[in-house]
């Protein structure tokens, strides 16, 4: 109800879901998709950094624990890149203590388990 589903003929904004856990990628992908984004799944930090050189996503759902390059490094890269100044970041972590630490750099910090409806709602709010 809160999601803004774009009409079929309009291009959907890009959202990157950066998460290495297989089940969670499919859940997060669906929630963000339902919020009206074109979703791209990225499963390691290294690929995420490379992809951010090429595209300007509207939203990034970023897990903190990632192979090769961790979420914190990626978050810092986003926040120091002028090209990505409008990109919204939802940080997803299973560690509440780490979440607090990065509170200021992310737009939202969600502690796992993340409610499907809550993620969908927040993602939709950033789809403007």
């Amino acid at each position, binding site marked *: 109800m809160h999601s803004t589903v774009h009409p079929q003929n309009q291009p959907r904004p890009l959202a990157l879901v950066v998460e290495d856990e297989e089940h969670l990628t499919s859940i997060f992908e669906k929630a963000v998709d339902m919020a009206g984004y074109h979703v791209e799944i990225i499963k390691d930090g290294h690929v995420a950094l490379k992809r951010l050189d090429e595209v300007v996503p509207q939203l990034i759902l970023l897990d903190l624990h990632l192979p090769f390059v961790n979420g914190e490094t990626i978050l810092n890269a986003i926040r120091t890149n002028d090209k990505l100044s409008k990109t919204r970041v939802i940080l997803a972590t*299973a*560690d509440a203590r780490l979440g607090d630490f990065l509170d200021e750099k992310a737009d939202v910090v969600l502690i796992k*388990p993340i409610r499907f409806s809550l993620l969908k709602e927040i993602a939709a709010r950033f789809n403007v």
Partner: protein
Amino acid sequence: MRDKKIQHNLLNTQMANLGLSEDTLPTLETWQMLLKYVDRTYARAEMANRYAKQTVDQLIERIRTQTEAINQRSDVEDELMEAQILNRIIGAITSTLKPDEILQILCTELAHFLKLPYTSFAKVEEKNQQYRIVAEFSIDQRNGSRIGELLDMEGERPKNLFQGSDEEIFVANDFIEEDDQGLRRQLETISMLIIPIHIGTKRIGVLGLHAFRPRRFTPREVSMIHKVAAVAGQSLHKAQLYEDLKSELAQKEVTETALEQARDEAMEASRIKSQLIAKVSHELRTPLNSIMGFAEMLQLGVFGPLDTNQTDILNKVLLSTEYLVLQVNDLLDMAQIEAGKLKLESGYFSPSDLLDRVETSMSQTATQKGLNLFMTLDPRLPELIWGDIDRIYQIMINLVDNAIKFTERGSVRVDIQLNEPNRLILLVKDTGIGIPANQHQAIFEQFQQSTISVPLKRRGIGLGLSIVSQLVDMMQGEIELESQVNQGSTFRILLPLKAPPTYIEMGSERQTRTSA
């Protein structure tokens, strides 16, 4: 007889002076004059004689006095020298707290002072009361050491040993009898002095002073050695106390080290436990997210429509998952509280918002159970109060959840009250089964639950109230519990109240803001 002769001689002399002789007879007058003269001269001689005698007596007396004075001076010098030696020996004996050193100094110093070839100290052995040599001084090292030998006291007849004025001091002076046994045979002693050394009243051993030629131990020497022995006893006592103290301290140190180690180990175990819990809680979150995510997707019809039965079962799955999430959160909180890592994040918040949040979270659960949930907010409370709203919310949720859990019919009441002068009361009151008085303390401990049975699905792992108690402690608050079995329970959380300074200074403004 002698006097008469002198008189006669004097008379003759006088007569000659006068030109008279025994042949010429003098006149009566002359006789009288002569006699008078003789008398006078005699008296004078007698006087001179007396004077001379007196002078000699005085002279003798003076010589005697002076001789005595000289003798006395020599005594004083002797005493002085002795005192100096005594002082030196005592100084040496008391310079150390090591018993072995004290005994060695004692033997060496006395041997030097008394010019003795052999001195020793024999210690009384506790088990058989025998004397064993433990320290010695020997002028001739060629004879070899006698350390370790037992003194042959049995062969000693008392008369040999006890030949002294003091029964405690055994002196054998100039001992030259043909008797070849006991100590004399053992130590080849001719003259010896055996003197006991005491600690307090207990004899710890004997000091043996030996001469291999006849030698007289003078009373003065004996008295001096006695003094040295007494000082040695005191010094040994001190050394013993010191040793005792040292071993006691060492023992204490060992105990303290063990305690420290045990404490460190306990702390390390606790740290590992907290780490483990944090890790477990962290590891549980990812699969929980999958369960919850897929269940929600099913519920939302992402995978197609569900019939009533399926929806019902799915709701049960979700409810259990949510409950599991709460438990995991509690577990992590507990681990963080224990590790001292949980920090309160205080700020100003509206007590009205707090109550709304509690109501939103709990009303459904209460309604499902057919319970009334009443919420009241004291109107005297300031609009904003200071505290960590999330943690206060957590406290209230825990209490309200428990209240609902243990109440089958009736109501649960939640009040936020102002308590004079500066205290906030969070009150949660139910009409449930109550808590027996003997469990009022225990329910705030970890993993404790009332033994009264509750439906299995509502059972947590018993951390809720323990966390409440720890959080209230962190907020410098207090918990009060009033409860009896089947009479319901009332929990009161008393917290220090801190309103924003503007409230105190501009009370009227608050009124405006509240109404706005």
